[in-house]
């Protein structure tokens, strides 16, 4: 679901309310103007003498003046009402609690790095392209960019906020309806800008707490010989140069954290569903799916690729 007409937070609801009021009032005014135009087009042209603009009778002149000033006043009034309404919505969006769950989001070409802050470093949870949030709690986002300007936009939750290199911008919202909502980079950031999506997973607080607790635990180490081989391929080839898997020696931060890779619904920032076939296709040649992507195609032999994919599929 990726629609601003379907708000799932008080913030998005306020913005949608403002939009609907503007649309409704604008529509009524348009109808009035259109009706007037039709009426004028069909009305008679009056007497010949009165066409002379230099000699308008005084009572007609006064009527014209009254009509013009009334319309100007009505326009100014409508704009002023919307100015106040818009300002109050802005104030509402700017209110946030002192303490809130803080999530660090870093925009990369072309994926989202997500980190859940915690005073205890071992409890920090790193993931990518999928942001779990508790329903009914205000969540604060600290937004940064690693390379170029991106923009964080989850239309069901709140408006857009730009991520600017060297600068931390913030955004907050309180999801009040559980569900999965799509978000998208909203500032052109290069070749694969369109394929830079993310998902907001709003879930009940209990479920969220369980997810967060599981997130900081490393995945089960493999025991099966194929999986062990897959893990060895991961560590000894190019994979571990960019990706991290909790509990192993892979700790790089160039690409997405793969600790709980299989817990996410998509591959490559919403480009593909997270299935085994898609994962194999993706690793074989990422550029065929996302031309220009930073992830290189590495020359794996079929057995290596198979073991590697089997291993990645266990990272729940």
């Amino acid at each position, binding site marked *: 679901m990726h629609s601003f007409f379907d708000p799932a937070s008080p913030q998005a609801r306020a913005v949608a309310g403002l939009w609907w009021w503007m649309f409704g009032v604008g529509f009524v005014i348009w109808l009035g103007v259109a009706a007037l135009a039709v009426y004028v087009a069909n009305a008679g042209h009056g007497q010949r003498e009165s066409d002379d603009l230099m000699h308008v009778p005084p009572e007609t002149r006064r009527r014209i003046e009254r009509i013009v000033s009334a319309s100007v006043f009505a326009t100014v009034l409508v704009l002023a009402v919307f100015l106040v309404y818009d300002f109050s919505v802005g104030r509402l969006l700017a209110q946030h609690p002192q303490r809130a769950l803080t999530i660090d989001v870093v925009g990369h070409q072309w994926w989202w790095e997500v980190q859940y802050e915690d005073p205890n470093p071992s409890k920090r949870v790193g993931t990518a392209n999928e942001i779990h949030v508790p329903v009914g709690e205000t969540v604060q986002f600290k937004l940064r960019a690693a*390379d170029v300007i991106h923009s964080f936009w989850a239309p069901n939750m709140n408006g857009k906020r730009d991520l600017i290199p060297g600068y931390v911008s913030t955004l907050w919202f309180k999801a009040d309806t559980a569900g999965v909502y799509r978000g998208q980079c909203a500032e052109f950031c290069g070749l694969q800008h369109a394929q830079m999506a993310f998902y907001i997973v709003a879930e009940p607080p209990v479920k969220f707490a369980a997810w967060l607790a599981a997130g900081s635990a490393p995945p089960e180490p493999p025991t099966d010989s194929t999986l062990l081989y897959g893990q060895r391929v991961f560590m*000894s080839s190019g994979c571990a140069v960019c990706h991290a898997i909790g509990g192993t020696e892979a700790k790089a931060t160039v690409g997405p954290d793969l600790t709980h890779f299989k817990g996410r619904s998509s591959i490559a920032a919403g480009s593909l569903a997270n299935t085994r076939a898609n994962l194999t296709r993706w690793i074989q040649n990422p550029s065929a799916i996302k*031309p220009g992507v*930073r992830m*290189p195609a*590495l020359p794996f032999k079929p057995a290596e690729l198979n073991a590697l994919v089997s291993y990645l599929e266990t990272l729940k």
Partner: protein
Amino acid sequence: MMFIRRIATTAALLVIVTSCEREDRRLNSQQPAAPTQMVPEVRLQPGPTLISDTTEGPYDDNAYGTTEGQVLFEQMNCSGCHANGGGGMGPPLMDDEWVYGSKPDQIFASIAEGRPNGMPTWKYRLNNQQIWQLVAYVRSLSGLTPKGARPSREDHMMVKPAPAQTPNAKPKNSGLPGSAQRP
């Protein structure tokens, strides 16, 4: 007048042709292959140090490939030892001294095979395309690649003019041996 116009048109066409090559992203083409002969090491040579620069790497004239190399240089932590090209634990890359040669295939071999005293082997970690992109960036640091394709800005603090402003490297094929040039 006609003559001047003709020259201008030809120049414009030439600019278009060269800029196409410069910006070509080669996203769907085949990866460039590794050099046929991986030079394991450059032998000691008599006479002056040589920069014999007639060959070009596959991304040397390509701005996109060179900047991708620049990104990789940071991501793979080359700066950890080479400090943005200025040198630290590892040798500087922006000067005109090349312990293992300045030719593209020699630099490729240095990155792919690794070198004594700390340079790791990258051939199992990066693919050929990435190594060639690094080669282009490393060569751009000292002005060995065509000027138009070099990055016009650095991603880090600029302590020296960007590669695009670096003067073209001059072939050193006369004078004293490299070791004797030191003060």
